[in-house]
């Protein structure tokens, strides 16, 4: 089984994140880059599926991002993935979800896959649509928000988290699966893993290599744009409710005005 796990380098959520003033894209140099948290769960799930299939499966990491994103590739390889493909090109800078899905689909088509696994959303853009877009572009089944994945032969079954519990969804491979944090506990890379990662093959793809039309990606090819942005307003002083035996009523009245009750 050929598993491709898509990972994304995002700015560390523990640090202050900002947008660039020139082209209103994410300032990737302003903060440390880390692997998107949910993608760690995706890597873990891919590795577990591989382990469940003995040696018969290979896990390839795919990332799209600037040169710095190799750190994230190395992290996924240190966890145990076999090899990686780094889609990187200045032309990709500023791609939105739709154009990213196009570029990633082209790369996936070139790599070949039975199963694509990714986190259900990233901590930076938080659109949460990439899995669905990829499945659509690739013409394969989409199984999103998975908290459990089972593969048997060419069939795949997931438990899909919903507001009311979960749905059982089944499909036939190839498929795209996005995972939520309930699915597993990602392993820590071991020292041996870190050492081994340095020797694992990482293939670099340009837009041309992957057969991507340069005018359909990047800022120019994006279907959405950031029109304007501003810093979040500082928090107000808040309202102090002074109770004189009627504190409960006053608090309840306040909550009613805010439509909480």
């Amino acid at each position, binding site marked *: 089984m050929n598993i491709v796990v898509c990972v994304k380098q995002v700015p560390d959520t523990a640090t202050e994140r900002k947008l660039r003033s020139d082209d209103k894209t994410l300032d990737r140099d302003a903060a440390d880059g880390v692997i998107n948290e949910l993608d760690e769960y995706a890597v873990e799930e891919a590795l577990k599926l591989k382990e469940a299939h003995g040696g018969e499966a290979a896990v390839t990491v795919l990332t799209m991002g600037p040169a710095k994103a190799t750190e994230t590739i190395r992290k996924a390889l*240190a966890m145990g993935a076999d090899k990686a493909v780094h889609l990187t090109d200045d032309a990709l800078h500023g791609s939105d979800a739709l154009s990213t899905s196009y570029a990633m689909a082209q790369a996936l088509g070139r790599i070949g896959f039975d199963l694509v696994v990714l986190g259900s959303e990233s901590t930076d853009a938080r659109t949460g649509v990439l899995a669905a877009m990829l499945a659509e572009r690739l013409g394969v089944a989409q199984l999103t928000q998975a908290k459990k994945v089972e593969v048997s032969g060419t069939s795949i079954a997931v438990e899909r988290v919903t507001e009311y519990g979960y749905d059982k969804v089944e499909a036939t491979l190839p498929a795209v699966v996005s995972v939520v944090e309930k699915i597993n506990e990602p392993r*820590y*890379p071991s*020292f*041996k893993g*870190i050492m081994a990662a*340095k020797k694992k093959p990482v293939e670099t793809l340009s837009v041309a290599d992957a057969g991507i039309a340069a005018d359909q990606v990047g800022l120019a090819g994006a279907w959405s744009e950031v029109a304007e942005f501003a810093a979040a307003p500082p928090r107000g002083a808040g309202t102090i409710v002074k109770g004189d035996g009627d504190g409960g009523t006053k608090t309840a009245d306040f909550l009613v005005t805010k439509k909480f009750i």
Partner: protein
Amino acid sequence: MDFTIPDDLAEFRKVVRRFVDNELLPHEDHVEEHDGLPEEVERSIKKKAVEIGLNAIGMPEEVGGAGLDVLGQVLVTEELFRALGGLAEVVPTAPSILLACDDAQRERFLLPCVTGDKQWCFALTEPDTGSDAAGIKTRAEHRDGSWVINGRKRFISHADSADFAIVFAVTHPDREKDRITAFLVERGTHGFAVGQTHKTMGHRGYRQAELVFDDCVVPAENVLGEPGHGFDIAHGGLSSGRVMTAARCLGPMARLIDEGVEWAKQRVQFGRPIADYQAIQFMLADCATDLQAARMLTYSAAWAADQGEAAKIVSAKASVAKLFASEALGRVADRVLQIFGGTGYMNETYVERAYRNARIERIWEGTSEIQRIIIARNLLKRGMFA
């Protein structure tokens, strides 16, 4: 001169930091309150530590260790000991003396320690002997092809939980040297018992106890190394033991400074954060200077060992690092507690715990005075070690 930490070590250090944050720090209150951990927590920490390769970090890969060089071990130890000793000590280790195991002993003692399946303890210290280790009184006599041990050991870390003890006893009392033999004594051996568990000042959960040997019969196959040569196999590990003790002091120093800075910035007195006052700034500056100096001494001693510098020189450098780092930790803990004021005197703060834990670092693995003797002897014999 290149002070860069190699890439893979820097990356592994990040992993260790995360492991400490996620797996160790959440249990600190428990270990402090109960002087130990629930069994399942301890098992889970051990299991994860082994998966990452934190177990027996200095052991060669062929026995299942991580095979880290001394600098790598120092960096990992420094990170691990950001957690209280009672948690950091749960991570499985194996002492280098066990590399002296023969093939049969390897399977029974060395390998299970590396994987965290067996706990060991190092039984050298006695009620009447600490620094003067050669003066131990525990005796082992050769009788009918076996050894019969009699004596008492004290302050033995992990003694109450150990599956076996590495016990030093005098076997050749008439000799001037080569008098002492190391034995592997398993729990449950007739005549071998755990005595009183000591109530200590710090490091809750990392317990020390007495071991009592009363006509304890140990088969000849449990002699570690050659009879009479116990100290030869023990001493190899002493320099690296001192470097690791220095490393154990770096983690708490770094965390104390982080907490001191954080506190000074948010604690407001007389209308301003106390970090604005030079009295506080000077204390923080002295802390940073102590840590930086201790780090450099420790890293350079580790590096000297990795470069294969002469054992005597490494030994002197290790002593310098251990002496300075352990005393610097005492100073840092004292200053940061002062910055915290009354709050730092409360047991629920890290500062109070770290302050108590710090004191032993100047005593074990060779007291500060022993380190000075080692340093001075080197100096008088060879001049200043470069």
